[in-house]
């Protein structure tokens, strides 16, 4: 029988301190108060003082309350029974069905040996041209969706969850509005995607510490499925809430803040989660798509900034569209050379012209005379926005490429495109006269 401690000597923020011996760093404890029982985790040891972060918060905790150490760190079940289920950040079912205690694995496990990774070479088709053609999603990629409050990022995630060609979806919600949570659940359910999904959801009203656990729980489960050879897609929303939770805890722990109050290890904290994305040599893969709302639409804010350095590209979601500029899938080169040989050229040319179009638009709005070339660009821009940028599309990559050639041919002649002659000969649409 494990020893029970009754003397809490300090309570500050979500952290309590007890005097105890023989306690392991990162181990779990149960704190029982009149409000019920909560899990807590050891976050610091100093002499005989043990600092515990209480998952349910410290409100209502009495200095005489009972603390019982469990002798192991946080764990989560990894059995197949998880599929179709919904849990909170601490792994307690939200859907009213029984708890699962089979095949427990520790969360936040060690990092994958780089020698056991393979170069990602498999495309994940989503049926959305702005992704498939311009910024192809690749198995084992980690990509944030940079957005701002109010944008339909959760709708986009839900659409990807339905359309993406993967085996298992793990959804981690942090600080979700309760309605958003219900919307996710209902959409996945209606489109039959729930049975291949596991959800860990922390809503805005839940204790902040549970928010910190959501990515680790989601990724630990994903890792187990991937080791069994499954192709897993992890969708996280919203990582900004996660980082803010980190900040809150760091400040309570009196850590020296670095940028705008965020702890100095923000980069490492985010990286240790994102780096769980992997294509195992001889097993499955984990791909991560994570919404990161940019406070004040500022990409240089520490959260999106640190995220951008970790992830393999980023999608910018603005005005309900994936912005072609700035949005980047760094791994697309690994796959888009093998889809169809005009893929890269179509992608580059269209983006180049779209950039020129934007410039022309600026000139036009300032009242400058439009040259013949400008007129062509304006036509192109409108066609591109109308036909390619719609996020509610579901078409195959090859059809999207053909569409691209058609738009180019509608607006320009062959020389103006600056495309290699060899490709023009093969793909330039022959105009019916």
């Amino acid at each position, binding site marked *: 029988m494990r020893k029970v401690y009754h003397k809490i000597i300090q309570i500050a923020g979500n952290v309590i301190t007890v005097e105890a011996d*023989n*306690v*392991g*760093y*990162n181990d779990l404890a149960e704190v029982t108060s009149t409000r019920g029982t909560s899990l807590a985790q050891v976050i*610091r*040891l*100093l*002499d*005989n003082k043990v600092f515990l972060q209480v998952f349910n918060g410290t409100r209502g905790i009495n200095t005489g309350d009972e603390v019982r150490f469990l002798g192991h*760190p946080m764990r989560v079940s990894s059995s197949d029974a998880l599929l179709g289920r919904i849990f909170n950040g601490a792994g307690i079912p939200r859907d009213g069905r029984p708890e699962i205690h089979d095949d427990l694995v520790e969360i936040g496990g*060690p*990092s*994958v*040996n*780089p*020698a*056991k*990774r393979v*170069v*990602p070479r498999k495309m994940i088709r989503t049926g959305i041209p702005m992704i498939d053609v311009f910024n192809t999603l690749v198995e*084992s990629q980690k990509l944030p969706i940079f957005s701002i409050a109010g944008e339909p990022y959760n709708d986009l995630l839900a659409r990807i969850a339905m359309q993406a060609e993967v085996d298992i979806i793990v959804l981690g919600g942090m600080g979700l509005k309760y309605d958003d949570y219900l919307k996710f659940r209902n959409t996945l359910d209606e489109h039959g995607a729930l049975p291949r999904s596991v959800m860990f959801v922390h809503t805005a009203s839940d204790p902040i510490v549970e928010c910190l656990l959501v990515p680790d729980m989601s990724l630990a489960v994903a890792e187990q499925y991937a*080791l069994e050879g499954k192709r897993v897609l992890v969708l996280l929303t919203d990582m900004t809430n996660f980082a803010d939770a980190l900040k809150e805890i760091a400040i309570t722990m009196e*850590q*020296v803040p*670095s*940028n705008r109050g965020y702890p*100095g*290890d923000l*980069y*490492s904290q985010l*990286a*240790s989660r*994102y*780096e*769980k994305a992997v294509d195992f040599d001889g*097993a499955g893969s984990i791909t991560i798509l994570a919404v990161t709302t940019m406070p004040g639409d500022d*990409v*240089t*804010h520490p959260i999106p*900034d*640190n995220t951008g*350095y*970790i992830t*393999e590209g980023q999608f910018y979601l603005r005005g309900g569209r994936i912005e072609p*500029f*700035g949005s*980047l899938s*760094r791994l697309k080169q690994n796959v888009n050379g093998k889809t169809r040989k005009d893929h890269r050229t179509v992608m580059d040319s269209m983006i*180049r012209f779209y*950039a020129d179009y934007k410039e022309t638009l*600026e*000139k036009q709005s*300032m009242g*400058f*005379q439009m040259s013949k*070339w400008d007129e062509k660009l304006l036509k192109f821009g409108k066609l591109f926005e109308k036909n390619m940028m719609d996020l509610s599309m579901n078409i195959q990559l090859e059809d999207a490429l053909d569409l691209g050639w058609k738009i180019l041919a509608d607006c320009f002649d062959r020389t103006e495109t*600056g495309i*290699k*002659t060899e490709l023009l000969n093969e793909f330039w649409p022959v105009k019916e006269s």
Partner: protein
Amino acid sequence: MPEHQTGRVKGVNGNLVTVEFDTAVMQNEVAYVKVGDMRLKGEVIRVRGNRADLQIYESTAGLKVNDEVEFVNELLSVALGPGLLTKVYDGLQNPLKLLAEKAGFFLKRGLYLDALDMDSIWDFTPIAKPGDKVRAGDYLGSVPEGIFTHYIMAPFSLKGTWEVIFVVPAAKYNLKTPIARLRNADGDEQDVTMVQYWPVKLPIPCYKDKLLPDRTMITQQRTIDTFFPVAVGGTFCTPGPFGAGKTVLQHSISRYAETDIVVIAACGERAGEVVEILCEYPELQDPRTGKTLMDRSVIICNTSSMPVAAREASVYTAVTIAEYYRQQGLNTLLLADSTSRWAQALREMSGRLEEIPGEEAFPAYLESQIAAFYERAGLVELNNGRTGSVTIGGSVSPAGGNFEEPVTQATLKVVGAFLGLSRERSDARRFPSIHPLDSWSHYTSVVPESEIKFARSILRRGQEVNQMMKVVGEEGTTTDDFVIYLKSEFLDFVYLQQNTFDAVDAASSVERQKYCFSKVIQVLETMFTFEDKDQARRFFQELQLNFIDWNYMPFESEKFNSQERVIDAKIQERKANA
């Protein structure tokens, strides 16, 4: 077995462990914390009274107060000897492939393996003879390592002159066998094996002189060699916001740079990037040697999710290995991606130590540490008259892409070339996104200085015209100014931009750069006549296309020569009559 100093854990805060020691400890000495049946490696970073703070290179989960600690009375060192090439190590020089064989998919903490296979057999040929006087770093013999002659040197830690008592005859030996015995004036004797150990944070001092780096290191990247060259034994940095192509640029340099050895320190960055190198380098051929790129590479990989303290060590591990090959009389190139992550590791530790924070919470000693790191680069004359060099290229990941931040600023003070990557250029898909006007270099270009100056003036004026056009519009610009703008765009598209993913365009030899640059200059110098702006634009679009096609053709091939004639004809088309 000598008795080690011991101590007991008194506090744990992340990877910072406070230990109460019994007798004495040394600053920066290595210590092991025993947890269960594992020993976790750490380093003493601060001593206060009878308590020492250790940074642990592993996860500290499960550590308990009163766990046992063992101090080993040695600084953190790396093993140096034949067999380093082609290896992939973590920041503490654990071979990752062997770790994978032992521990499977995941890195297992507390598992440390020999950096070099001590049982591997090497074909030794003696150089020194009994009776020779040797100093630290002198060659005692050699073994072949791939295409290189790997010299076995007298330990770098030797003080003064030692006499060789015996050297083994030419034969095959493993790394454990003493190959020589040395004696100093006091009569102390020392056995020498083919492996020696050197503390990573100290530069290897065994050379006669540091020389001025005055020879260009060819990277086969047009923008770099022509506009912002790097010298053999020099330093450069590539700061840039995320997505600007830092890593792609570094990979291109590591592939095509004309250097003997490349040491890559993947420090706190994505594992995926390292994996690319791991999978591709054994396949890619080094055109100069006919061997694979892996045969000339050592990779130190401490990616972002691997323990932070080891990240700090990884750049030192890498530079020490680079210095070791410099001692062989070779030119080595160290690419560190990214030094910002290393600086952040310093910051994390500094925060845990509750030191008074400097700018953006980086420690006050950040600048001096960065300077000390880059100063380990250099072209040196060894004691035996040969030369060797370490060239250091560090990428920097400034927060928010803002070059004003402390790490970029501290780096700019100590490097010889600054290749600043710009978000504007990368957004416009103009790669490499090295900013042609903001970047600078103190080293010598492969083309004449006057041509560079001229090309740069076109770029500058082209940018001015472009700015002006944004205000007054195209119709408010004179055709002459407009042509200058078109010429600057032309220079950008056909010369500054280079397609890394094209087999031919990815690497441009010095001869090709000289040849093509003079052709570009010819276009820039030529006076053209146009009837209107649309005609001018059209002309340059076509000329640009001709040049881009030219870039994709192998140098001096049949196609290349005929394309040149097409270009020449095109230039004549609109050339103004003199």
